[in-house]
């Protein structure tokens, strides 16, 4: 059982603060009763019509004509909407401006949306959408990242990050390895598919219900497509049925499509994707391919690294720039790279436009260096953990000492940021002991020697993950806290709830700031008319940014109340405490509600905004140097696996995790993020295989063919512990961000599989394991002729 209960005692009277305790998710009771509403559950306004996408069935071609006669003749069909019906800009307001709302003259991937059928029912729209005949003149398509790179087909220019002289370091290195690596993409598979509901209001104003991680961007995109100012569009989202990055930009497309249709037909339009359409249309985690040459000494200490990373971005830029950047920033993971030369190519292919996905390129950076270190260890006959350990950044210096900037200090990343808070040395030591890594590694070696068919492997991998949006401007947030005259509290912030428990944590923070019971605080739907210009809920930053903003908003109200009480009691404001639903001054202890009512009667402001921007960060996009991250989150996992040499099947047997969330605001929610992130990462590297056929058609486009982990896949032993130390930077309640970092702990499964494969081969040859490690890919790695690359 990984579910902790932590009660903080305060002095003689046991006052349980809201934070630091495993509060239940604020919607849990509604969710288990079927009473939590998602977009498709909202009562439909009279006259609502339903839409379905018309999609390209060709990967690349010239759109010559459209014959929709048959579709228009079908029962219930009201209209079909195309690019010409977009009242504003026919290009989406995406960063790079390279995506049309609907395909205009060309189609660039199978599944690209050409138009939208609008009908009386969902099924009528979907049936008719299949009847629209597209006349497409086929053009050559680029379907692999290798073809794209060879043709220099890029969505954005390449980026190069260098430090020192990698070529010289390689030439002097006692050992070098050259290699390649292929890592597949990943479908988000949020259980709630993409959905938007656009409702025209009076005076050309719009209400859009969108299942989105970024209501502000949806607002901006819809306004842009409709030719309106942002103030005319209000976007609301109470909750998503999962996001994982897949509803950061991709939700905007649906909202724009629904709004354009609603604009043309002058009635509300709801667009809810069928699961198969969702797979075909929306972007996924970027598949990556790599080439590297690495130099190292007899102990496995890295000296030089030349690395090419090729990201398959799909047909447009979307978020590929920052995703590929983050892959570059995390190619060191936890290790000091002395002389390094990284080239990052953002390859354009005729597939869905790949997008944000938990880790946002980080996993694709981390896995390559972990792969390299595992290979080096086996090459040298060393324990991979020992090789990982000697390459770690130096341990954090005591707080307050000036940072040593010499190369000998081994504490600066390849992009010039000092790693000041590294706790991985003690963290790994503790995990190594708690997981009994060494004893199990020895036992596994003995077991493997006697086992003819099943081979086991064990690996520990760490993670160091940079927290902050790399685009510095996004690191800001706002919140509103309202105290009503009955003493109840409502909080609203710019973040979105996608299941991660953000609203629960923010309510805990506000409750403690006001000293009221947790139950008295209610979080409400994200709403662009309450908090403007909010950043996406992404980059693990939801609680750091919005929690702090809400804390400041609550603090403003509390200050107002404190001043008021000071006036009553003739004391200083610093003497007033808010705790346990009471307001305590040196003179009197009053019920919070009584104070609120008296303050209201005295015309004291009982609500406030709060605003937060992350300190210390700066980043130069031209030189790719600076401090893009406020701090790092750390963790490590020990995974044990078994493989079957006859079939390549594998099982994850045991997992031990030690992860750093700072001081946890809600241990149960944090552990939920760690376990959920780990299992999702495990799926990425084992069973979740995206297969595009030779025509660029995604043939794994439903859960029947695309396999995310199920109940039986989680290991029999699955231990999660939290690192007991507050964030060394000043972050809300001493906590650390938790959404993404644990995803990369699953790389330990991949490395353990490689250990098992090496045992199965027994020939000392390099293990080349294509991810995901399906049975077929594992068997390939076991049977690959030695020396073949």
């Amino acid at each position, binding site marked *: 059982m990984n579910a902790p209960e932590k009660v903080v005692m305060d002095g003689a009277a046991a006052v349980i603060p809201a934070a630091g305790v495993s509060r239940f*998710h604020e919607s849990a009771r509604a969710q288990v009763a*079927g009473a939590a509403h998602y977009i498709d559950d909202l009562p439909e306004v009279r006259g609502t019509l339903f839409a379905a996408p018309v999609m390209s069935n060709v990967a690349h071609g010239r759109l010559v004509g459209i014959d929709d006669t048959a579709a228009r003749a079908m029962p219930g069909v009201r209209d079909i909407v195309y690019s010409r019906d977009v009242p504003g800009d026919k290009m989406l307001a995406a960063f790079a401006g390279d995506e049309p709302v609907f395909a205009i003259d060309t189609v660039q991937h199978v599944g690209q949306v050409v138009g939208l059928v609008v009908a009386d029912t969902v099924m009528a729209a979907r049936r008719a959408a299949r009847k629209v005949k597209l006349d497409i003149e086929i053009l050559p398509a680029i379907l692999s990242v290798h073809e794209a790179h060879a043709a220099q087909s890029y969505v954005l220019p390449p980026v190069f990050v260098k430090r020192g002289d990698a070529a010289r370091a390689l030439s002097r290195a006692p050992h070098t390895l050259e290699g390649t690596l292929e890592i597949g993409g990943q479908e988000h598979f949020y259980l709630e598919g993409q959905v938007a509901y656009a409702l025209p209001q009076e005076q050309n104003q719009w209400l859009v219900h969108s299942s989105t991680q970024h209501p502000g961007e949806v607002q901006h995109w819809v306004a842009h497509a409709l030719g309106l100012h942002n103030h005319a569009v209000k976007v609301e989202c109470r909750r998503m049925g999962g996001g994982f990055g897949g509803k950061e930009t991709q939700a905007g497309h649906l909202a724009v499509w629904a709004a354009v249709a609603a604009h043309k037909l002058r009635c509300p339009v709801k667009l809810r994707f069928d699961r198969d359409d969702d797979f075909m249309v929306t972007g996924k985690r970027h598949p990556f391919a790599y080439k590297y040459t690495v130099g190292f000494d007899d102990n496995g200490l890295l000296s030089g690294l030349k690395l090419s990373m090729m990201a398959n971005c799909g047909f447009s830029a979307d978020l590929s720039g920052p995703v590929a950047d983050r892959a570059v920033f995390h190619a060191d993971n936890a290790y000091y790279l002395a002389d390094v030369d990284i080239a990052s190519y953002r390859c354009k292919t005729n597939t869905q436009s790949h997008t944000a996905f938990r880790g946002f390129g980080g996993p694709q950076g981390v896995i390559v260096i972990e792969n390299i270190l595992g290979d080096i260890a086996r090459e040298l006959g060393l324990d991979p953990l020992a090789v990982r350990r000697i390459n770690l950044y130096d341990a954090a210096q005591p707080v307050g000492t000036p940072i040593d900037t010499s190369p000998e200090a081994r504490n600066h990343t390849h992009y010039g940021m000092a790693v000041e808070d590294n706790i991985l040395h003690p963290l790994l030591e503790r995990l190594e002991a708690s997981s009994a890594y060494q004893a199990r590694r020895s036992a596994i070696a003995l077991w493997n020697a006697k086992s003819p068919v099943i081979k086991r492997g064990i690996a520990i991998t760490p993670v160091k993950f940079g927290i902050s949006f790399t685009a510095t401007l996004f690191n800001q947030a706002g919140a509103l806290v309202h105290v009503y005259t009955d003493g109840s509290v409502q909080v609203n912030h710019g973040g979105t709830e996608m299941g991660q428990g953000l609203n629960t944590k923010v309510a805990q923070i506000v409750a403690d700031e006001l000293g009221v019971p947790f139950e008295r605080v209610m979080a409400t739907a994200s709403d662009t008319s309450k908090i403007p210009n909010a950043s996406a809920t992404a980059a693990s930053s939801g609680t750091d940014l919005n929690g702090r903003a809400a804390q400041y908003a609550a603090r403003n109200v509390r200050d107002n109340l404190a001043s008021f009480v000071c006036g009553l009691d003739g004391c200083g404001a610093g003497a007033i405490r808010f705790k346990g639903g009471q307001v305590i001054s040196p003179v009197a202890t009053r019920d919070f509600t009584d104070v609120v009512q008296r303050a209201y009667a005295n015309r004291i402001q009982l609500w406030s905004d709060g605003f937060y921007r992350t300190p210390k960060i700066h980043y130069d996009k031209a030189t790719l140097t600076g401090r893009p991250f406020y701090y790092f989150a750390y963790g490590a996992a020990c995974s044990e696996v078994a493989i079957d040499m006859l079939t390549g099947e594998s099982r994850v047997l045991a997992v031990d995790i030690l992860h750093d969330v700072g001081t946890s605001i809600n241990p149960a929610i944090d552990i939920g993020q760690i*376990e959920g992130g780990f299992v999702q990462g495990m799926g990425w590297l084992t069973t979740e295989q995206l297969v595009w056929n030779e025509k660029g058609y995604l043939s794994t486009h439903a859960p029947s063919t695309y396999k995310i982990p199920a*109940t039986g896949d989680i290991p029999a032993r*699955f231990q999660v512990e939290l690192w007991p130390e507050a964030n060394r930077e000043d972050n809300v309640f001493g906590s650390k961000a938790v959404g993404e970092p644990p995803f990369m702990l699953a790389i330990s499964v991949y490395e353990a599989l490689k250990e098992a494969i090496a045992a199965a081969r027994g020939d000392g040859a390099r293990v080349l394991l294509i991810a995901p490690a399906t049975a077929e890919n594992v068997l390939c790695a076991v049977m690959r002729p030695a020396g073949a690359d």
Partner: protein
Amino acid sequence: MTTTQPLRFIRRGQTVTLGNVPPTRTLLEVLREDLHGSGTKEGCGEGDCGACTVVLGAEEDGRLTYRAVNSCIRLAHSVDGMAVWTVEDLSDTDGTLHPAQEAMVQCHGSQCGFCTPGFVMSLFGMYQNHVAKGEAIDRKLAQEELSGNLCRCTGYRPILDAAQHMATLPAATVDEPSLLRKLQHLAQSTPAPEADSSYISPETLAALCEARAAHPEAQIVAGCTDVGLWITKMHMEFERVLDVTRAAELRRIEDGPTHLSFGAAVPLQDAYAALVADRPQLKSFAARFAGLPVRNSGTLGGNVANGSPIGDSMPLLIALGATVVLASIRGTRELPLEALYTGYRKNVMAADELLAFIRVPKAPSPAVELMKVYKISKRFDDDISAVCLALRLVLDGALVRSASIGVGGVAATPVRAVRTEAALTGQPWTVDTVRDAMAVLRGEFQPISDMRASSDYRREVLGNLLQRFWLESQGWQQVNLESLTLEAL
């Protein structure tokens, strides 16, 4: 235009009656759109994610049965005369949550909450089938019975905890006598079937054969776990549907002296339970067949009649020497199962015929029979086979007296590996024989490459599975991940 008869079921103790429900309307559409109950969710529309899970109650031999099913691919009319529970129907009127719900709250089992209604309903099914009968739910049982519900947020550990936690909470009971009375009343008050209804579900085999003869164009359905997708994904519409699941003879399992005889409408869950009782080594394979909601709805006859080359029952049934009985108003005929198929999803059934029974020879003494079935898929549970290999040898001392091998995933239909069988029959059961047979088996089929596996892999692994079979027959332990046992980790 033909019409359907009123659809009636019991929900929250009341009879729900709906008129003019089209024959292809799904239960989920009825719940969400007609009854405005948004608690039940659509996650995939193909019975793979479980978000739409509801529980059906029915009377069988005087007792109430509870089955969790996928409402997204279940035809609404198929629940006529049953009790239906959705996630909105479990809590008390005063808001007290059912243990299945309360356990999910207490164990932090919901994050985004979208899969939660489906998990809650699967838990409710488990509660009625285990906890209410005083049986404990351990982690293994929870994993098995929840494998048809996908969650993308939690990593499942808290949900598995919740399954085990339910029994410790204050009990919630279903008033079964009252519900049985209501179901009986519903059955007695069923109007006489209209001959021209567009949803026909005859109650006897004879009536079924007559309906089949009268309406050869009607789409036959049983549990609808595949035909449901033709409707939701391929957007097919049928003028008329012939539901075989109400014919009493087709719902029976007969345990004879030499054979198990399965009515074609026996749910997969029940059919596999009977097969496992006869051959315990099939237990893991049975649990890996789809997820419980699919096994509760889908039928053995449907799996066989559908004839998918990657359906898992057929390799097993071929290896076991099963026969099928086809029925029509002209009488019945019996043929070997593999003789049913003539090509990709094509079979020998005449327009007026339907599959009535599947007859499976029972296991002889374990001393003479070696029988195993192997399945290769990307995910261990709830996945479709890339390759399925079922092997049955009857040994006569050291000699292979007969070999019977069924294979899935290697041809346009499920097939018998006749050349491999010949390579083994009459040979000594030795490593040399096995090595030769492995080569024959690898060469016997020309499987395609698709998203599940490449042709080369399928061929290679077929031979390797035969090798595993040999090793297991020689008493080798720890050569199969399914049965891997390790020291406490």
